[in-house]
């Protein structure tokens, strides 16, 4: 299933999750229920198209929380536009919502 932007439904869902404030892969997985094999290539594609930027979080924060550092993604303006266009085209996206009880984590 592809729209004219060349974004697959999975990729649009990832973009949508980013727009809703999800910031890293695992987070998106919990929010969307997509498999890892869809999310990470989707993130790469989104970044390559300039719809998002990414950076590694500061190692100090991670260490203080005793976990590995995360790679955070932030949606760009182009990303928002592309998402809006895709949402228009994807009626089926109406059914994709964040799952109950899930909240975008606050950094």
């Amino acid at each position, binding site marked *: 299933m592809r729209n004219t932007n060349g974004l697959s439904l999975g990729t649009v869902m990832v973009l949508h999750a980013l727009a809703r404030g999800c910031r*890293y*892969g*695992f987070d998106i*997985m*919990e929010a969307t229920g997509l*498999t*890892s*094999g*869809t*999310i*990470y*290539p989707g993130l*790469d*594609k989104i970044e*390559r198209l300039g719809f998002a930027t990414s950076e590694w979080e500061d*190692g100090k924060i991670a260490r203080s929380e005793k*976990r*590995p*550092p*995360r*790679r955070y993604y932030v949606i760009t303006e182009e990303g928002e536009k592309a998402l809006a266009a895709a949402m228009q085209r994807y009626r089926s996206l109406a059914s994709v919502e964040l799952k109950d009880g899930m909240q975008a984590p606050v950094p």
Partner: protein
Amino acid sequence: MPPRREEYDRRPRHLRLCLAIIRVAGIAVPRARRAAWCEQWNAELMHLWRRRADLAQPRLQSCRQVILWSIGAFKHAWYLFRTDYTMDILWHDVRYGLRTMWRGKGLVAIAILSLAIGIGANTSVFSAVDVFMLRPLPYPQSHGLHTVWVTNAERGWTQVSYTVPDFVDLRERSQTMQLAATTGGTFNLSGGDRAERLRGTYVTPDFFQVLGVQPAVGRGFTQEEGVPGRDKVAIISDGVWRRRFGGDPAVLGSTIILDGETHTLVGVMPPHFWFRFPGVDVWTPLSFTGDETRSSYRLAVLGRLNDGVTREQAVEEAQRVMGQIAQDYPETSTGHSAMLLSLHEDVFDEGFQAGTLISTVAVAFVLLIACANVANLLLTHAAGRGREVALRGALGAGRIRIIRQFLAESTIIAGVGGVLGLGLSVLGIRGLIALMPPSFPQVHEIGLSPRVLLYTAVVSVFTGIIFGLAPALQSSKANAADILKEGGRGGTGARGARLRKALVVGEVALALVLLVSSALLVQGFARIRLADLGFDRSDVLTMQVMLPEPDYPDSASVVQFHSELASRLGSIPGVEAVGGITQLPLQGGSAAYYTLVGEDYSDETQRKVTDFRHITPGYFAAMDIPVLRGRAVQEGDRIDLPRVLVVNETFVLRHWEDSNPIGQQVVFGSGTAEIIGVVADTKDRGADVSQRPMAFLSAYQGLPRFFDWAIETTVPMETLMETVRSEVRSVDPNIPAYDLMSMDTLIERSLGGNTIMAKIMAALAGIALVLALGGVYGVMSYSVSQRTQELGIRMALGAPAKAVRSMVVRQGTVLASLGIVTGMGVGLGVTRGLSRFLFGVSPFDPMTFGVVAVSLLLAGLAASYFPALRATRVDPLVALRVE
């Protein structure tokens, strides 16, 4: 920043498994991104694992989730691999590959040519294997078709035709099969401008129904046409229809004259229709009178399994029926049983199976040799590029990237080789078809079918990848710093050289196997073809005539025809002697039971058998068969006089080792004959069959309707053919002389199926030899060029040219010897499988093995001599300045 190592080890096993999965998947990720990629996946894995722990899920469930999640790393890695390796880069690889290949165009051309030859040979052989062995026979639901045969363990029968009453009984009682029967025949088709001899088959009326093929024009036979007296109808082949009747559908219903009897044409079979063997042009109904005996075995029985019946059930039933027959008719049928062959097994028998298997293996060997050559040449080519590869590596090209570059090049080579090979295979297939005797069915189907093209494509791509991989791995492994330090001289170092040498040893070994096999086959071929058959076959023209019963009803008229023809042929200028015989050598045979007067053979199975022929007086003279005792058959031995008999030496040895056989009486079913002479043995059934006793009776005391003629000539026989034809016509214009050919051609044709293997193997072995020697030459000349510096120093220090030369030759010889020893071992195992085609030549013939080994060694010497010669021409000054 990935988690530290000690942290992993404290983690549960399933987590470590996930980390391993991620690491494996990471191999496909472009090198520039791999570290970051692994880090990201590891980090995400930790998040996931912690979250699972927080949620306090059942352990098993969370394990499964985590492992499934890590499998996604493969998809991600594949995605990155794909997007990284875009068409741009592919195109770049191709362009770059073409450029570098152009620089080494000599080597590349040899590689492509080797591959083209290998692929061409494989495609040619596969096209035949496909038609013979892989395709179903061209009949609807052909897997249900079987042939049924009589067996008899007591009499040593493994596959014997049916008698008419046995067939009728089987057909009546069978619940598992629809059954039809056929028997061969030949027909004189007269009328029109000239008479013609056609091969025919008598078939039961339901034959076409059972087979599932109906005439393309007109109809098959009806049940009523299987009754004697109403059976004068005929179906003809498409070939005869077009040739004799211009393809005119209006001929249906008209009459043709077969063997002097009027038949109504009712149908024309589709083009290329055949059953069990090709070349049949007429089908007429097989009618049973009810008087047939249970001791005349002449029907080939075709059965089609009914729906839902297995072959085992059909076999069991046929055996049961034959068992009943054996009980009911003990005097003729004791011990009878039955066996089934699928029609495919029947047509493409063990000889075909062994032949196709051997050809396939041989041609695979040729391809392997070609591939070894390609790998070798690519390694050589790559070795010269050590510096280039090192530079690319130093500039940041990943190992995968470099391997890809090499693979692109080898795939181009394989692709071009494949296309050229396809072109060569067109010639190969044509040659292969030309070798096939007319008795091979389905030959017209052999060609570049879609399946063959697919096969070629797969083989090409496969060889491209497999044999591009070796040099790719070799060169990409090299350490950039070492090579740049080395001054770009080598690149792949000792390991590459070892691999190249191993490839050459393998090539020589395979070539030796092929050479030995083909040498053995050619010897076997020569043995049956050039063997002394006991008669002189040069300058003998042969032909056949057949006298149909309606026109030649009795012995008098038959004898009249033959003796008039003999005298007419004998008076043609340039004809030295003329003799007629019921069957010329290698054209099949007739055998009969006999007893000697005064001996009692009450038990049928104890009676002696001898081959027999009817001959005219000139036969021994025409064939230069010496009469050892007594006299030959003479003109005067006519029907109204006591029957005379000439026997061969083997016959004499059987009964009268010490006494005189002349005057002895021999009793045949048709009467008694007196031995008047003894002739030397002749190998009438071929050189590979043990000598059998033979009895020659006078044709003028018999009724030989089918008659072959041997005409010994003193002038080129081509000049006599038309005269011979017209002499036959002048005796009776309705009798065609057919199959006019030299005795050599006749024998060659009869051996066709047996000799094709020798021809194919000789061709393949020749190709293998050239390819393998090319390999030895390539490696040696490369090694010389790599050692220019060293050789220069040696010569500068005073090494004589001879010593340098012999050093290089010695190296080549060692490689060849290793290959020969390996090949000997393999060869001893392989040649055993050839024994069917060797006709008495031992598969381990030491002479053959020795001669081939020595020749190959000498060829190896020669192949390394030229590089050695070049080595001594090295000017020390130039050599030292090489860098």
